């Protein structure tokens, strides 16, 4: 399942997409949990009883601001979360 967390508002579209099928068989040791400086990710059991990763609820409406420090304008060449997720399950829409 592709889970898109985020929103669209007047300034743009801000979604973090997580391919939860890859989370179920994570080969990166859940590295995303510690890679995010704001600890935005959390493990959860989804509606089909699979353990997957999700974006914590309080961050889902403020992604544009919360992720700003990790974007190229702040000196990062790679997003820490997408870099840590070696199977490539995490993607940013912006």
């Amino acid at each position, binding site marked *: *399942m*592709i*889970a*898109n967390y*985020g*929103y*669209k*508002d*007047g300034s743009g*579209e801000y*979604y973090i997409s997580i391919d939860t099928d890859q989370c179920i068989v994570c080969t990166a040791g859940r590295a995303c949990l510690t890679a995010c400086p704001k600890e935005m990710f959390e493990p959860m059991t989804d*509606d*089909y009883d699979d353990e997957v990763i999700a974006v914590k609820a309080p961050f889902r*409406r403020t992604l544009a601001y919360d992720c700003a420090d990790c974007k190229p304008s702040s000196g990062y060449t790679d997003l820490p979360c997408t870099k840590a997720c070696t199977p490539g399950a995490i993607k940013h*829409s912006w």
Partner: protein
Amino acid sequence: MAAEEKKEYWRWQENCWIDESKDWRTAKIITAGIDVGSVSSQAVICVDGEIFGYNSMRTGNNSPDSATNAINGVLDKAGMKLSDVTYVIGTGYGRVNVPFAHKAITEIACHARGANYMGGSTVRTILDMGGQDCKAIHCDEKGKVTNFLMNDKCAAGTGRGMEVIADLMQIPIAELGARSFDVDIEPEAVSSTCVVFAKSEALGLLKSGYTKNKVIAAYCQAMAERVVSLITRIGVENDFFITGGIAKNPGVVKRIERLLGTTAVQTKYDSQIAGALGAALFGYTLMQKQAATKVAVAA
């Protein structure tokens, strides 16, 4: 001077229905789904995996009371007691506050399951236009979610936004859809993505000479464009199904269909019950699994 009665133009029709052709007393498994949304609450009762009855009403200021009122409405109509129901699943915004629920499941999974029942196993793309959020869901032939996104950051493109416009125009909400087509030329969509600003813009349009119908058409178009931009993000695969209260507004539905170049699947059921129905069906599957496990253990 008698006080002028304040008419509530936003108030939509509450609904309670029972399938008189079914006898719940002969059922093996009775399950219920309770969808406590931010604007409306629904209770659906299923007997042996088939819909038996439902109640759809406005959510009050207290989720447990809303859940209780919703289920009591359908139980009373059916001559049942809560103890007759084997398993209850809560869903929606207030799912964790359903006092008599055995389990809570997100409305995303429940809407997909409910749409699969209401629209058939060929439904792949679901648009749930709820009271205060909008969800685009892609599912497989069993109604299992394969892709979803949700926008609950603002009220534009939601049922609440439409209620605000109904009040502003002083036209009953059930008439907005039909009236939006009663225009000589289809207007441009209102530009605002926020319902508060859209309201201001609508007032400006009225002052500039737009008729009420034309303003409603502009708002319906804006709502359609907004949700279409959401749904195209996950991709539209036929069959396409719309759940939630806005599915009853042809002014928005037809414009969405026009923008997507497809037609939404019609259903004989109330589009607002999809979440609660899905929850009740999840409950039925769980009960079947438990019964199968017991048989296996006994053997």
